């Protein structure tokens, strides 16, 4: 049994207190749901893509303070990025953007990276064979 951990950076606490982009997207272009094998937590990430650019991202997370903060941060980071750019976002980049995470909490940022990757994969699978322009037309 442990007391409240205060080992987080100000940035982490800021995102934890006011998480951005909480929720779901209806009929998302991509959705990823991943579980944390280390501690058993769950993260969901939804994206909306327009002309190959991520216009909207939302999340739902069952997990610790670091998990909530990294989910929040990753949804902020992907907005406005192309799929190729988003695919390059690593858990380290998310952690760095948050001013670092305690070593024991790095695995929570891995969860955020995986949730994003799986949402992007989902998008790529769904839109397989369709060029962005065709996709727009078909809508």
């Amino acid at each position, binding site marked *: *049994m442990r*007391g409240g*951990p205060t080992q987080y950076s100000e940035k982490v606490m800021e995102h934890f207190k006011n998480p951005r982009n*909480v*929720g779901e997207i209806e009929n998302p272009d991509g959705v990823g749901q991943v579980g944390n094998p280390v501690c*058993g937590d769950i993260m969901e990430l939804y994206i909306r893509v327009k002309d190959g650019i991520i216009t909207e991202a939302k999340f739902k*997370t*069952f997990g610790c303070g670091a998990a909530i903060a990294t989910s929040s941060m990753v949804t902020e980071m992907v907005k406005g990025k192309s799929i190729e750019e988003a695919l390059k976002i690593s858990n380290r980049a998310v952690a760095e953007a948050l001013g670092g995470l305690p070593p024991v909490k790095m695995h929570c940022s891995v969860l955020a990276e995986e949730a994003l990757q799986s949402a992007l994969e989902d998008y790529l699978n769904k839109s397989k064979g369709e060029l962005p322009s065709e996709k727009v037309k078909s809508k």
Partner: protein
Amino acid sequence: MKRIYLDHAATTPAHPEVVKAMLPYFTGAFGNPSSIYSYGQETKVAVEKARAKVAEFIGAKSDEVIFTGGGTEADNFALKGVALANERKGNHLITTSIEHHAVLETCKFLEKQGGFKITYLPVDGYGLVDPQEVKKAITNKTILVSVMHANNEIGTIQPIEEISKYVKEAGILFHTDAVQSVGHIPVNVDELGVDLLSISAHKLYGPKGVGALYIRKGTRIFPFMHGGEQERGRRAGTENVPGIVGLSKAIELARQEMDEEAKWLVCLRDRLIQGLLENIDHVHVNGHPFWRLPNNVNVSVDFVEGESMLLNLDLENICASTGSACSSSSLEPSHVLRALGLPPEQAHGSLRFTLGRENTADEIDLVIEVLSRIVTRLRAMSPLLKIRG
């Protein structure tokens, strides 16, 4: 904003009277109790007075109490001391799966380094050990049974007297870790029927770093520290005189205030449990409905994780704790909650509030209000709620 401290099972603030009693022994009466001159004698007398007070409180004789550097040391002393001194009689120890790490890790050490066999008994859904299970686990190689008096996480109080009957019948030594119970509920070594009992001062408004081990006369046990003749040669090292005086003062105060305090804490405890159940849905109480420490509240809140609740509570200046995997450095959920058979998500959403003498009904009401707000906020973020429907 005033801090609301609800983590008394972790540690308690020293009572002002305790601090006052300790102070003279840092400066004026600083002598070494082993010295011949009167400076030393003065502290020797203080230590022996303290010993008598602690012994009396638990129904023991003075020479059956050994001062230690805390509860963890008392547990280590009892287990290693008895195991090694009775090795010829047998190599089997019995304990439970919900003990404090001070007992569990010592058992693991004895298994690994000493070749001892340990039986870890299960508990039921309330955290109770079945005395019949203890009886069944005893073999002709069993030399020690160790069952905690009250659990630090869920507050469940074990049927020590009943277990003792079977242990005594078999002529085996019986240890109980009473770190959470001494000073909070009645503890008497003869009524409980134990041969060894661990005490920690900082769980009953005494100082940190001091405790005691009760060792029934005639118990075969090796010394814990080797060196000087202090503590009848069983625990060498210059006595922590201020600490020992602090422990005995804390015990003296507990003797006067314990009954009243327990009644008050039961009121607050039940107010908090009721309030949480009424104001937040999908909340479960962990532990026993009445075989429970007066100050312990342990609940699981579905669909949310413990550390994120703690962090939010901390932002509102409320101190509590959790058995969630996310808040432990091993990233394992609490072994106690697992032993109860809780599904992992429920261990994840567990919160422990342990109340103390300074808490008020207003504080309890505020905690209920604040936590409901926090849970609503976190649930809005939780993917589990939707999955479960």
